[in-house]
């Protein structure tokens, strides 16, 4: 096992609105090892982005991190002062946001925006910073950095802008990169370029990454481990192939089955029925029970705990699916 870089214990992030509290992240624990790519997957409203933001305390009113420990290299981020967290952001943990249109400042040149990060987090002099900017742009695959550094974001295409955002995120050589849907706004060929680039950069330097996405196919290509989130909770977690090939939670299975995949040819997709429940009014018991094809009365009364199925493979389901000889079988064990 590789050593742990980040450990999150019992994280709860709630949003207190006039209509009541929304438990966007509700008691989740996970860890990220050095050199590891961990994916947070789920549908919109699952709490995966809020989890990402919570890690560097980028939660604004009415959101509050209610409780939990975020241990980054042994230090609890929750106990740090605002100034100390500032020193962490960008330098130790950096973030890549979904929309490259809005995460760059339109009135500053690309060069200035990359330099800012170097200015804040390194002790390079002006000449060294300029050289570092060149190298950064080069490393993210932007040719002739000289003229590109003087350009403004609007002069770049979506894919190029996302490369710039990645360059900024990498500028201070952070230990952990949180990428929130980094390729959702991009075309497939550009998405492939960016994902390959990110994987190469992370692997080459033995850095860690938390990849937040709704796309299970992207996850299967990229991640080492997966956390599947539903309604603010982790419902299944484990090594990528274990979660994808032997998914035990009906929600994970449903997500995989509802994706049209090139390798499979089916006339009808197996959709998950219904929609994500209203976060103000979560169902009793298992959150997924109303949409689950095999839920029983027991499921709607008792909330399942995460329990271990295989090595490092946990699932929060009373009746996890079991794959036997390629066929899915419903386990009939330990009901109550």
């Amino acid at each position, binding site marked *: 096992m590789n050593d742990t870089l980040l450990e999150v214990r019992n994280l709860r992030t709630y949003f207190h609105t006039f209509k009541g509290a929304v438990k966007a992240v509700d008691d989740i624990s996970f860890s990220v090892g050095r050199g590891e790519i961990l994916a947070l997957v789920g549908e919109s409203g699952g709490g995966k982005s809020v989890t990402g933001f919570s890690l560097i305390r980028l939660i604004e009113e009415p959101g509050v991190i209610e409780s939990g420990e975020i241990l980054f290299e042994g230090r609890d981020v929750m106990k740090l002062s605002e100034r100390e967290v500032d020193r962490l952001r960008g330098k130790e943990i950096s973030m890549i946001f979904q929309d490259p249109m809005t995460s760059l400042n339109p009135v500053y040149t690309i060069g200035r925006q990359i330099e800012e990060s170097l200015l804040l987090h390194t002790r390079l002099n002006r000449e060294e910073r300029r050289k570092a900017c060149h190298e950064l742009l080069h490393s993210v695959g932007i040719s002739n950095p000289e003229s590109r550094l003087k350009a403004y974001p609007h002069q770049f295409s979506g894919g190029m802008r996302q490369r710039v955002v990645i360059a900024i995120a990498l500028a201070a050589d952070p230990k952990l990169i949180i990428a929130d849907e980094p390729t959702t706004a991009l075309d497939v060929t550009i998405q492939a370029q960016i994902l*390959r680039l990110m994987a190469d950069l992370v692997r080459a330097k033995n850095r860690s990454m938390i990849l937040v996405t709704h796309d299970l196919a992207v996850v299967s*290509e990229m991640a080492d481990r997966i956390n599947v989130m539903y309604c603010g909770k982790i419902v299944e977690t484990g090594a990528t192939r274990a979660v994808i090939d032997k998914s035990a939670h009906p929600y994970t299975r449903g*997500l995989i089955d509802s994706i049209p*995949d*090139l390798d499979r040819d089916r006339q009808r997709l197996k959709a998950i029925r219904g*929609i994500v429940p209203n976060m103000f009014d979560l169902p009793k018991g298992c959150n997924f029970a109303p949409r689950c094809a095999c839920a029983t009365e027991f499921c709607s009364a008792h909330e399942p705990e995460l329990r271990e199925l295989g090595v490092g493979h946990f699932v929060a389901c009373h009746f996890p699916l079991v794959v036997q000889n390629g066929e899915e079988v419903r386990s009939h064990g330990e009901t109550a």
Partner: protein
Amino acid sequence: MAKLLEVTDLEQYFDLNTDFLSKLAFEKGRLVKKERIVKAVNGVGFSVGRSEVFSIVGESGCGKSTVARTVVRLLEPKGGRILYDGKDITSLSRTGMLPFRKKMQMIFQDPYASLNPRQRVADILTEPMLFHGVVRSSAEAKEKALEILNRVGIRPEQASRYPHQFSGGQRQRIGIARALAVGPEFIVADEPVSALDVSIQAQILNLLMDLKEEFSFSYLFIAHDLSVVKHISDNLAVMYLGRMVEKGSKAHIFGNPLHPYTLALFSAIPRISGTTMRTGRNLEGEIPSALDLPPGCCFHTRCPRALPLCREVLPEEKEIEPGHFLSCHLY
């Protein structure tokens, strides 16, 4: 069997400088007239048979949505011919188009922007019915609207609500119901599922296919996602920079893809089985601007197998095998 829709040499341009003054620019101290024209669609031809699903795939900016909008005459075609059921609708007047508008309906990509926020769902459906005269009274329209809403999975008591009270997937169902309201035979769906969550996407795709079985519609389906297209199409075309580079049946394109761009698209798609995308060949560079199209084959700037010929001569469309068309010098 006669084709329902036949499009030949369709062209669509957008002039970015619409007034005369903005065409003028200073260059080397002299005033010159400069045209800035986006060549969105350059000579596209295809046909859609009855109860057939024809898909157009490509990346953003390739002109696929423009083709869809031009075919239903939401945009005036700048060249080419559009035959619907054997009749030329290319230059019909507004009133001349009316009977065709009833037969051709459109489903839009963004379920948030394509529904009027001030109209109740029931009114969104009854308005086109009354306008096209498919019903005799508003009471009948109301009844029919509820029936259609029920078919797409919206409960009758929800019909008096406004669009903002629905989720994205439900709104897309309303958009589909609106298209069904006037009893069309041809539906143009412009990226109907790309704004939705995966589990909802599957529900909507299943609904579209069920409706097709039930009413034997023909679809022109626009998508950027090859795996979605594989799931629903009979025939498809791959577009790049305003041209169809490869065209054929589902078996042709997915079983025997030939154009370098089609191959690149395939290798870029992430798969559940993993590893294909990360190990596959990268397609370098980005799509050139449609303001300034490269000479010769439009794909030569990114093509890993480009020949000197490709930079100069535009490849003709060739029929490689019966029904499988390709525009590439390599074959």
